[in-house]
């Protein structure tokens, strides 16, 4: 149980980077971008291909983000310059990327099991520090028997993801970032304030997909392989993370909203892991579970609110009636 939850948090914190990317398009730009299902795999494919061909893992990971950025920019160009509907532009790009990803990998699945990944390198630096035995000592003290292989990935990724969050927060508060946010809010207005909305959308979708591809590259290294179908249903996962996060932690400010997205991504992973512990559920049920989670996260706050409103009205009416009786 502890081990599977540990794994959920570990991958959740990586998927959080992807969710931040989806947040940039869906929430900030109000651009429903489906490119991510392709660009996530592109990130994984580029990373795996590079590593297999002897490129240093760190460089391979950066290349993944660059590839994602290019893919996102292309979607942005299709939409702004080609005047193609946002949804369709994303679908077209995602479809095109499927073929490209397959070409990059040369086969549907590319294994890195015999290669040194970024995380392998990290572990070899980490292991001598003895931090693992410290943490593991603590948890076995709590009576947990199965201990995780390494804490290195989790701790590194917490730093990386928080770093990306802080950069995103800063970016969205810069002059350029404010204009970017205004696009999702009031496009006509920001154009009348001399912002080039086309180029802002192109870079915005580019950055979003750079994050998604980066997450793809990291997930591939965590699992030890890239698979051409690993992006399937990703957009719903991204949305689920955002919606869960927003429902639980709110969206008062940008700083709060991006944190909510990260926590939402981790919680989503934990929910899925828990669901899979249930005997009669299988791995193939994941998509259904995800859809149910999204529906629940979307509907619950509304139901609670209507209930509360109703209760308030009933109380008010009762109060009035009581007052009326008093007069009579």
């Amino acid at each position, binding site marked *: 149980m502890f081990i599977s939850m540990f794994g959920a948090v570990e991958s959740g914190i990586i998927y959080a980077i992807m969710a931040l990317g989806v947040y940039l398009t869906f929430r900030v730009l109000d651009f429903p971008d489906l490119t991510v299902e392709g660009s996530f795999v592109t990130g994984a494919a580029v990373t795996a291909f590079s590593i297999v061909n002897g490129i240093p893992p760190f460089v391979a990971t950066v290349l993944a983000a660059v590839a994602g950025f290019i893919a996102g920019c292309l979607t942005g160009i299709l939409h702004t310059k080609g005047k193609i509907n946002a949804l369709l532009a994303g679908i077209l790009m995602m479809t095109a990327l499927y073929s490209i990803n397959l070409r990059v990998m040369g086969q549907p699945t590319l294994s890195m099991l015999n290669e040194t990944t970024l995380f392998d390198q990290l572990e070899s630096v980490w292991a001598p520090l003895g931090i693992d035995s410290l943490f593991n000592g603590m948890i076995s003290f709590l009576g947990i028997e199965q201990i995780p292989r390494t804490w290195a990935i989790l701790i590194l990724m917490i730093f990386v993801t928080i770093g990306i969050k802080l950069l995103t927060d*800063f*970016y969205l*508060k*810069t*002059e*350029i*970032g*404010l*204009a970017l*946010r*205004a696009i999702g*809010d*009031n496009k*006509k*207005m*920001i*154009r*009348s*304030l*001399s*912002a*080039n*909305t086309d180029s802002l959308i192109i870079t915005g979708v580019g950055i979003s997909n750079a994050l998604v591809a980066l997450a793809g590259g990291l997930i591939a290294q965590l699992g030890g392989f890239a698979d051409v179908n690993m992006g399937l249903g990703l957009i719903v996962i991204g949305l689920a993370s955002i919606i869960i996060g927003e429902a639980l932690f709110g969206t008062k400010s940008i700083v709060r909203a991006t944190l909510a997205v990260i926590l939402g991504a981790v919680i989503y992973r934990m929910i899925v892991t828990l669901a899979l512990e249930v005997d009669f559920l299988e791995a193939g049920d994941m998509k259904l579970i995800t859809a149910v989670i999204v529906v629940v996260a979307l509907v619950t706050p509304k139901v609670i609110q209507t209930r509360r409103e109703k209760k308030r009205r009933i109380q008010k009416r009762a109060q009035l009636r009581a007052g009326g009786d008093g007069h009579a």
Partner: protein
Amino acid sequence: MLKLNHISVTFNEGTPDEKRALNDIQLELNKGEFVTVIGSNGAGKSTLMNIISGALLPDVGDVFIGGKQVVHFPEYKRSTYIGRVFQDPMAGTAPSMTIEENLSMAYSRDKKRKLRLGVTKQRKELFRDYLTTLNLGLEDRLNAKVGLLSGGERQALSLLMSTFTEPNILLLDEHTAALDPSRAELITSLTDKVVREFGLTTLMVTHNMQQALDLGSRLIMMDKGQIIFDVNGEEKQKLAIEALLHEFRRIRGMQFGDDRAVLS
């Protein structure tokens, strides 16, 4: 400051819906001139505004701002020189962003946007000073989301946002029409104040004839895509509504049931 040369616009050319919205418009505004524009519905007033701002391209004609030909500039580039307030109070601000963020975006209008903080301590002070001039207490609500403001407050903010960088040209298209009378009065007096203060070259469309007569230094009347009447200076000061209606009838040479209703 602004010069329109032989501007013509036709919508849906070659279809049964063909509509000549502007017909060979010739207009020149000197620096600091404040022009009110009146005309019946469909006269082409908004189309004229859109041609100047670049939201629409003319079929033929030139637009010069400060002597520079800008007719081929896209809207966002032209808006470096142009401040606009729209009729709809929702149109001029970003509702889910704060007052200070909105002001910061407007502050960047005539500058290049960079990767540096949009709202700094220094700018907050500046924004607070500007907001104080509105007398609406907005200076104490810098962090409030603009969506929470009333229509009048939003319109006052839009007006400030489009003027405080002192644009070469200010375009106002019925910017008080969606407000209740007292709010409209407030925005009108604010408009008069800022235009004077910054000496802005302004075009203001209004359906309120009294307003058109009271404000500004020049008045033009449009009808069927043409400027049919243009007065300024002392002549405008002397003008009364009745004279304006009379003028409209004389020029058009026809009698409507009620011209007042047509014009206002």
